[in-house]
């Protein structure tokens, strides 16, 4: 009798527990809106345009209002710090890039967030390759010619980048190391003034992202090589095929979520995000911005982060660059 009672009580308890668990799981997957994508940069910039494209499509697939919230300042660090304190229930996502998640942790002695302890990767959205270019008026025709020229004119071996502490800055140092020439870095305040200076031959060469240079190639700027795994442009070789095996430089945009966001929620959001960027219309627009759509899983994105740190870490450390 007693055993029957205890058994039935046990069954009821179990049933209730299963029910609670079920409800808990169900509610965890049901993401409460409105969902916000935090962009730590001003409205209208590259990341913002990308985030708005995705937000627009997420609305349909998640059935929730999805808004883009711009929290610009301090190169994205203000928005990132803000995002780490947001609810970890799938209602907040953060747009990030290598500057925030790879470079900053290495160059700031005090950083207000920890990429690994405050966030979890959700998905890498797209990648963009770096390029090495010279003015179209230059006599230098290829990478080898450039290295020879630098060896003969070491005092003029200056390269421009869009910003100090940016990945193109360190990519330049990577080239410098392989070329065996000490190249002096001249940072500009963004791609636009850099491109202007390069076209006007104010600097002999520049390292930047593919997109900003290809529109001037070959009339005003000559891209000597792209830094991806395969050719980005049918007529421009990659560093790899030229024999510089280890020279590879790729930037990216990705989405992360606050650390405590549950796994099922991450999976659900990942599916929705990947689905959104694979819509042909969206893919085409991202490609028009000169980048390639990736749309990785959360695990793959985590792996990319790790790889990037291993790859850039030694170069950044060797450069002695410190931001504070």
């Amino acid at each position, binding site marked *: 009798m007693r055993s029957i009672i205890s058994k039935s009580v046990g069954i009821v308890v179990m049933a209730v527990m299963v029910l609670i668990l079920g409800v808990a799981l169900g509610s965890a997957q049901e993401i409460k809106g409105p969902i916000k994508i935090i962009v730590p940069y*001003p*409205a*209208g*910039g*590259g990341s*913002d*345009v990308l985030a*708005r494209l995705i937000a*627009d499509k997420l609305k349909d697939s998640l059935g929730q209002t999805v808004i883009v*919230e*711009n*929290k*610009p*300042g*301090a*190169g994205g*660090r*203000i928005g990132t*710090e803000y995002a780490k304190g947001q609810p970890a229930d799938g209602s907040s996502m953060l747009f990030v890039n290598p500057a925030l998640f790879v470079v900053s942790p290495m*160059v700031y002695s*005090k950083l*207000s967030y920890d990429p690994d302890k405050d966030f979890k990767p959700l998905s890498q959205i797209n990648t963009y390759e770096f390029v090495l270019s010279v003015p179209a008026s230059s006599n230098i025709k290829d990478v080898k010619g450039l290295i020879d020229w630098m060896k003969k004119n070491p*005092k003029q071996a*200056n390269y421009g980048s869009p*910003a*100090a*502490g940016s990945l193109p*800055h360190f990519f330049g140092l990577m080239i410098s190391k392989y070329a065996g020439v000490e190249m*002096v*870095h*001249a*940072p*500009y*305040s963004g791609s*636009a*003034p850099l*491109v*202007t*200076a390069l*076209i*006007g*031959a*104010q*600097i002999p060469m520049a390292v930047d992202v593919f997109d900003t240079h290809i*529109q*001037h190639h070959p*009339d*005003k700027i000559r891209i000597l090589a792209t830094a991806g795994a395969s050719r980005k442009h049918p007529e421009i070789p990659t560093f790899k095929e030229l024999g510089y095996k280890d020279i590879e430089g790729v930037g990216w945009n990705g989405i992360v979520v606050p650390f405590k966001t549950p796994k099922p929620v991450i999976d659900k959001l990942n599916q929705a995000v990947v689905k959104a960027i694979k819509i042909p219309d969206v893919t085409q*627009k991202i490609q*028009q*911005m000169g980048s390639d759509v990736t749309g990785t899983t959360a695990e793959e994105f985590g792996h990319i982060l790790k790889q990037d740190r291993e790859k850039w870490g030694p170069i950044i450390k060797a450069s002695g*660059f*410190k*931001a*504070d």
Partner: protein
Amino acid sequence: MELLSNLTLGFQTAISPQNLLYCFLGVLIGTLIGVLPGIGPVQTIAILLPATFALPPVSALIMLAGIYYGAQYGGSTTSILVNVPGEASSVVTCLDGYQMALQGRAGAALTIAALGSFVAGCFATLLLAVLAIPLSEVAFKFGPAEYFSLMVFGLIGSIVFASGSVIKAVGMVVLGLILGMVGTDITSGTHRFSFGIPELADGIGFVPLAMGLFGISEIIKSLERREKREILKSKIMGFWMSKKDIRAAAPAVARGTLTGSLLGILPGGGAILASFISYILEKKMSRDPQSFGKGNIRGVAAPESANNAASQTCFVPLLTLGIPSNVILAMMAGAMIIHGIQPGPRVISSNPTLFWGVIVSMWVGNLMLVILNLPLIGIWVKLLSVPYRLLYPAILLFCCIGIYSVNNNTFDIGLTALFGLLGYTFAKLECEPAPLILGFVLGPMMEENLRRGMLLSRGDPSVFFTRPLSLAFLFMALAMLIVIALPAIRQKREDAFHEEGEDG
């Protein structure tokens, strides 16, 4: 002939009913946000950008461009009426515009601002149509040495902003330079004077600084002079300018237009730099520099024409080379990319309707602006009869909204309040904030280019003297220094003479 057929194509595009409508919408929104202090074209275009994705690219660009140059039109209104710059590039307009309003000539000031902008807009449009491609080459001639020397010229020129003591003006320039140091150093990438406050890592914002020093401090000042208000009200005269005004303003408009058109092409400074430099030139060329800052109509006409011309010629590098010269144009480049048009040298040949349509729409838009704005002047001037107790809290509210919307950050509002108090202190000490603003704008650009020049030459300073354009700017700066020094010497002798006379 080719130009004619191109312009015809442009007109066909620009005056289609749909594009006319979007052009009108653009300039209307632009005027409104220009009038509202703090809320600028950057935020507005950013917000409206997604909405334009659904439009055809030509209409989208026509509207966005309309917002941009429309804001330069509207920005002068609050500068003149209440000394609150509606737009960053209207800061200079405060100097003489507000003084004119105090003298009851607000109508004339607003009229010349609108007409000057119109003339400048028309000229710049024509320039864009005829010379866009050769003009785009100008920017390439500017290396770090040229920029540095141009900034030196600008800084020395900034002394003329002082209508009082030269020493105080120098002090204010230096203070501006110091404030400009705050933030991330472009050359090394490290933080300077940010005291661990992340909000200061990008430096002090131009909007909080200008808004605080001019707008907020003016509101604080108004608390102590309730009665003067009546004088202002009773003295509001006709809205039209007198013949004497027209004679004085017309050449100033022409000079402002030229200065603005040229400086607009350079990346970075654009409209702000254009308005400052044109004011400097105007004052330097005047036979009566003492009257500047005291309600000289030329001090309104020149910078207002310059900022409008610059806001149009800055499209040259974008449309011909795909290089955006400021944040707003970068957003427009983004809008073009979204529509599948890669901004760059190929736009003219691959999308002639877009290129010529946008250019002609600027002329159409300028016409609309002048038609829209002239009747509004009457209404704006009437705004002055709204009691301060209602007007100023409203302005404060709009300032706060505008400043918050720049970075979505409350820190900037606190910063504005701080600069407001500082501005009030300056007013009490009779120190003028305009040289400070110019030092703040030019200082970081000067430092950046000096250090870049030195980096590229590996520490050899001769680059600044061996490049002809750079040398020319340095010579002009030297000449200006002499011109500034001469009257000061003369003044001293005169003072001495006066004192002797009084004693004797």
